[in-house]
């Protein structure tokens, strides 16, 4: 095996679940998440020389997952708006450690996430899952800080429509009027 093939194997063995989970947070579909991960890995490892550092490569793969997801939904934007209505939903992903408390919370949040537009959803994942700052999100998505703030503000508003108040999700740096970005 060549160097990149060894890096690929190591990355899959060590981080495949994490990558799949990351993709799932974006697309909310297990099969699509697996496809996103595979497509991203293929894209990364089919280009020239990849880094031998697993963390560096993983970051690159995550970025590719995100871009692939956003690109795909740019093309399928209209379908994304109604997919949750037109497609009979699959069962929840299996979990060995779900609890009575966690299950409804997870389902509620997943339902709430479905109401978000793809860019809003990507911003939410970057902000609340990746713990990125607004400027970092803006850099990752090639958006302005103000646009990211509006996406996040709109997204939190939509999530609250389903989940109820999320006071701690309102940051000072998100204090912008809703509805500005679409």
């Amino acid at each position, binding site marked *: 095996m060549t160097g990149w093939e060894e890096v690929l194997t190591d990355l899959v063995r060590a981080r495949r679940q994490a990558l799949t989970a990351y993709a799932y947070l974006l697309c909310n579909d297990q099969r699509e998440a697996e496809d996103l991960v595979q497509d991203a*890995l293929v894209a990364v490892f089919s280009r020239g020389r990849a880094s031998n550092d697993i963390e560096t490569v993983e970051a690159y793969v995550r970025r590719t997952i995100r871009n692939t997801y956003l690109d795909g939904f740019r093309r399928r934007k209209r379908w994304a708006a109604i997919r949750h209505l037109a497609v009979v939903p699959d069962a929840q992903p299996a979990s060995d450690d779900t609890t009575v408390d966690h299950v409804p919370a997870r389902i509620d949040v997943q339902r709430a996430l479905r109401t978000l537009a793809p860019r809003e959803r990507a911003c939410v994942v970057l902000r609340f899952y990746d713990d990125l700052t607004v400027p970092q999100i803006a850099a990752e998505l090639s958006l302005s800080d103000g646009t990211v703030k509006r996406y996040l503000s709109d997204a939190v508003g939509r999530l609250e429509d389903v989940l109820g108040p999320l006071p*701690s999700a309102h940051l000072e740096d998100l204090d912008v009027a809703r509805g500005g970005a679409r």
Partner: protein
Amino acid sequence: MNQHPNSGPGRGNSPDGGAPDGLDAALRDIADAVPSGALPDDDFAAGVRVRALALRKRRTRRRGLVAAASVAAIAVVGAAIATNLGDRTPPPIGGTPTLSPTFDPDATFPQCGAAPDFEVEDSQLTLVSEAHLDAGGDPASESAPGNEPWATDLDVGTVLPLQLKNTGALDVSGGSTGYASVVIVKDDVVVASPGPMPEPWAEFDLEGGQSTPLLSTSPEVCGGGELPDGEYQAYAVLDIQRDLSGVADRAPLAVYGGPWTIRLGDDPGAIATPEQVLACEANVTELGATQDPVTVRMLADETAVNADTGEPMPQLRIAFTGEPGGPAYEIGAIHVAAIQDDEVVATSSVGVEDRWPALGADAAGGEASSASITFDLPTTRCDGNALVGAQTFQAAVLLEPLDGGDPFVVTSNRWETTMPGGSATLPALDPEATFPQCGAAVPDEVDSPFALTTDESGDVIATNTSADRLGGITSPWTVGVLVADGRVVGLEEAVDGEGQDFDLAPGESIPTSVSTSTLVCGDAGSERATLPAGEYEVWAMHPFAVRERAGVGVHEDLTAIARIGAQTIAED
């Protein structure tokens, strides 16, 4: 990941238990519950590796030769060079096989349009191919210009075996990518130029007369599309850096090989693959009857029992009779096709090398011998539906000898049998399911501004029954389900599609399409039986993402649900 200096959202759940006050905690909870996927990690990685390798080789090409052979003799040391020797023109969309070998006086070999003129430096090095056969029918150690055409087929990635050979008496060392570029020429004009070059670096050190295997890159058809079938000349080019005695720096050098005559397209002498002979929906009227010394018959009296379901499993027996003095057979794989009305309706393959004994004269010490093997019939139709219930079959069986000999087909008698799963069990009413999920109860009433009806031709139309103009996005089709005793028992598996915009004034309608499945709904991915004969209600659900109501922006996800008719499933 970097931590947000103001990690604002509350961590963990709210005091009342389930509400996800902390979005980060809820997202991590979701992420933790996501499985990696069904494939083992190493198998998954192998799949990625294959696709990545293919992309590395094919990044911008449509088709071509696939890299060959082993490179065990080449030491890959990790440095890289990237060479692009040819032109690249985006292939036309939907291109049909055309060829326009237009000579370009400004192009230099191996660019598109160039003549195969190149200066061969006296380097002791050349590229040789072993693609041809010698006069005795054995693989030639070195193909020569003028050899009989070597039949190949670029579309299926036939290998062009190449070697770098030191034709002199002195040692020659240096390095290259280990990949030679293949160039296709027609009428003295390059019609397929080198494709992308992989980046590894391989050292070589060849004694006089010694050679080392190379990989070959895939050529790209000039102007895109495909090359018409026919004869062409193939050349190969390898960029190397040669060590020169007494010189510190290596000297770049192009090493050439060819021309070798190749024939593109189907090889008329090729043996059809099992997939071709017994492919789904293949017509098998020409297969003929069972041939000696192999016979196939149905084991009507030795039906096995499915260990999982306890249901009877019809089996097929292949009985083999070895004639005294006849050939010996060792079968490596068996491909089975279930045939109805001269058409393959289901297929399966089994490897039997560990179960099928060597038979024939040799195995029986010159005496007649016989043996048989049984295996299950295919259970899934080519269209993905389960093969269940009473069926009339003929079977065609393709046997692949272990020794690489020609596969041969035998066919069975016709018989009637009952495949397991014919007695379909309808799903029970599921109070947790939401219409139109499997087992869900049909709703008593639906509060929706849209109504579903059928027109004279039976097509479904959705009508805005509200007093407002409604606009937004909707599905191009309607979800149709079959209902028995008030719950969903048949559901078409969902597929993704493209949404469509709608803008309906009060009373206006849009047409839509609906289809239903006559299979029992249930777990996705499992084989599903046909619904029992009888009459079923047909219900439909159509989704609307309303984004504008009476000129005001809204965010309303709505559905229209209605009973739109009935469907009768007849006895098979």
